[in-house]
């Protein structure tokens, strides 16, 4: 068995960014991936849908997409991919997993990881977001264009660009829905909004906007596959770098071990009994925060010792506008329409980011369930509300959020169990409330109010914006720390390239920035001896 030059573990967004960076430098890469995929019968149904035009779709064609997605007043329980939960299925036969959150948080063993179900938000970090990181803003920002080349990037230049700069080509943005367009115009024309520390702009989305037909199925899974997932990039890299890139599916990594100028990777295969060892000069762990942390804990032999994961607290609330639009008749996309950043030192010393969604069919369902007392009159009331409601999803900086706690336990019989629990930070709920109240103060210019009683602060981790189990520091002194290249203390050839190495989780969209960070580390690893 030979020694590979580079092994990348995982083919989610950070995995493909790592891989792309290495390939761009002419390096050979083996990608080891758990690689679970969408069920073939569902794939077939999606393809049949794609072959028909929008007008030919029958409600029965869409049933497989819609039937299993359940939304409540506190958001989605679990976001599915084309009605399938394949992204969340636990595939590690050698470890049990327990999550105490509701809904439970599951790491993804899917090919493409959670980018198969994500909301496609791709806002680059601002300078303020990187406060407390051991790298300069430009160290990360200089890689934004490279990442942007890996994904479609539908965005436009607006007020948010000043805070979250991104140069280079952009695909044309998706069309805003009428309610979103009006909210944006209200928020940007009245100077009171800006002086309250609020910046609003269109969402930045990793979506191929051109062919979009605005069928509104984004939340269920785009029938045309226009929402980027890491599988798109992986497919392209596999085609472009046939001689350099090898992709192997079904492998789950158990541990890493550095010895004699190389790394030994102990893995097992989903369908094959026993363990097997791969050897490489360098290993990049991009298996997703929970998986990568599990691998490191086992490699370090740190059983029964909790490691804290930083989370960006997620909260949701509706916003009621005075004037409605005929949104039910409109063809809209149902991803985030707008991003709103709140920088108000009275609310929070760090920025707060809000994603704004306009109407989707799940919203109508939730409204109808929330106001059953209207009886037969409920339908028109629900329609009137639907035309006036915007859904806000907010994120807080990890300093103001609860934390997740991950422990790898080992039983007497040698079986491992990974337990994810959390510790509530009372600041989180308070800060979310303050943020909502800050918007409520602007009821006049924003022509509406947030519905504060319906604010729901979600369980930690529910938005999957977490990481920081091995935060990067200038000089890793403690055991669960890594250096500026994501190498945990004591390792020189193992690089964490997913959000496990984030020193903080800013209130932002995490994926795009985690990809840039992965790209940065992978590039640096090819330049001389980074040790």
């Amino acid at each position, binding site marked *: 068995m030979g020694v590979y030059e580079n092994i990348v573990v995982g083919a989610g967004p950070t995995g493909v960014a790592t891989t792309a960076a290495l390939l761009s430098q002419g390096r050979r890469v083996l990608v080891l991936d758990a690689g679970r995929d969408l069920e073939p019968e569902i794939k077939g149904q999606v393809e049949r849908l794609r072959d028909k035009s929008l007008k030919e779709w029958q409600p029965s064609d869409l049933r497989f997409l819609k039937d299993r997605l359940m939304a409540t007043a506190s958001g989605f329980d679990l976001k599915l991919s084309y009605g399938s939960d394949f992204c969340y299925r636990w595939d590690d036969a050698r470890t049990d997993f327990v999550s105490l959150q509701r809904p439970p948080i599951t790491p993804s063993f899917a090919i493409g990881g959670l980018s198969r179900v994500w909301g496609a938000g791709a806002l680059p970090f601002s300078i303020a977001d990187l406060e407390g990181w051991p790298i300069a803003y430009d160290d990360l920002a200089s890689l934004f264009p490279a990442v942007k080349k890996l994904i479609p990037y539908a965005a436009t230049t607006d007020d948010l660009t000043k805070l979250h700069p991104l140069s280079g080509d952009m695909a044309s943005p998706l069309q805003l829905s009428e309610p979103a367009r009006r909210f944006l115009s209200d928020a940007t024309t009245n100077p009171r909004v800006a002086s309250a520390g609020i910046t609003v702009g269109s969402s930045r989305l990793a979506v191929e906007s051109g062919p979009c037909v605005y069928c509104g199925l984004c939340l269920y899974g785009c029938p045309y596959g226009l929402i980027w997932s890491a599988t798109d990039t992986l497919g392209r890299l596999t085609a472009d770098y046939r001689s350099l890139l090898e992709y192997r599916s079904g492998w789950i990594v158990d541990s890493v071990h550095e010895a004699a100028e190389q790394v030994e990777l102990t893995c097992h295969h989903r369908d094959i009994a026993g363990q097997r060892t791969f050897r490489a000069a360098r290993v990049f762990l991009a298996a997703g925060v929970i998986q990568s942390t599990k691998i490191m804990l086992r490699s370090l032999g740190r059983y029964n010792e909790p490691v804290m994961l930083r989370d960006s607290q997620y909260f949701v609330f509706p916003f009621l506008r005075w004037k409605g639009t005929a949104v039910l008749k409109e063809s809209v996309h149902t991803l985030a329409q707008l991003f709103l950043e709140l920088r108000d*030192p*009275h*609310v*929070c*010393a760090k920025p707060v980011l809000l994603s704004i969604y306009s109407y989707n069919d799940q919203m109508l369902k939730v409204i109808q369930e929330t106001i059953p007392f209207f009886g037969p009159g409920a339908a028109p009331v629900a329609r009137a509300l639907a035309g006036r409601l915007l859904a806000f999803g907010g994120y807080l900086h990890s*300093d*103001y959020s609860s934390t997740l706690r991950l422990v790898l336990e080992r039983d007497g019989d040698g079986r491992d169990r990974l337990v994810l629990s959390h510790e509530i930070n009372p*600041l989180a709920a*308070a800060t979310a409330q*303050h943020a909502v109240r800050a918007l409520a103060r602007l009821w006049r210019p924003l022509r509406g109010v947030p519905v504060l009683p319906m604010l729901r602060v979600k369980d930690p981790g529910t938005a999957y914006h977490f990481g920081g189990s091995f935060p990067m520091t200038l000089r890793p002194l403690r055991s669960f720390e890594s250096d500026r290249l994501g190498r945990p203390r004591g390792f020189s050839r193992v690089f964490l390239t997913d959000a496990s190495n984030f020193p903080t989780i800013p209130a932002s969209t995490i994926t795009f920035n985690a990809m840039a960070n992965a790209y940065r580390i992978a590039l640096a690893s090819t330049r001389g001896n980074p040790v």
Partner: protein
Amino acid sequence: MTGPPPTIAVTGATGYLGSALVQHLLSRGHGVVALLRPGRAIEVPRHPRLRPVEYSLGRELPIEALKGCVAGVHAAYDFSPTNWTEIQRVNVDGSVTLFEQWRAAGMGRIIFVSSRSAVAAERSFYGRAKREIEEYCLSNGISVLRCGLVTSHGGRGLFGALERLVSRCPVIPLVGQGRQNLYLVRIEDFCEVTAYLMNRPATNEPIELAFSEPFTLREILSRIATSQKARRVFVPVPIWVIRTALRILATAGAPIPFGEDNLDSLVAPGCPPDFAFLRAEHIAVQNPL
């Protein structure tokens, strides 16, 4: 020519004294950098000249936060630690670190808001901590403002707790015989004098701030009762009984607006204050009752 009133850093800006001081400084045209614990910034007024900054005693203060500050008032005290080691780490060492950072940032006038509890430092951790901070201040050119019991109406603090006690209880327990002398000062005077001290060099002695004549606890309570037009019966209770009762209530987690430290402030009058500074500067403190 003088410019606009300078910017002043204030710790404890959501506290009883701090919040009043912040309002006072803002009304005088000062800029204020309010140093607040995380999550508390929402409690200070939204004002164009007020900048909230997160800071907890015992933690590092981001130095850029002090930009433009020429003076500082330290009125914060963290009551959450209960053992002396922790109180010393957070309150004493934390305050010293804060002063050092303020001086390093070039802030010329620093005022430490102390309490008459520091006179009888041996009686409570609070008094002891205040006393230790005072000692550092006096040897490092920082003004120490030692306040009597600060009164305000419908307010917070110990005086507010006494007002609530009188309004709620028909029978009022008197600590000891209620004969101990207490020195009082109106919150308006506290604000005035603090602002005045910004323009004065530091003294080597604590500046005692209170109305020249003391009042007994019984007098104070009966004046409050009279102002509330309420008839109240006063019952002397030995201090150990009240102390035990407070401890039991605190252990049981009862929401009492009056803690053991408050009790110590009432029973620890110490020697009468020396009003040398007020006399020398011709500062008249009004009768608070």
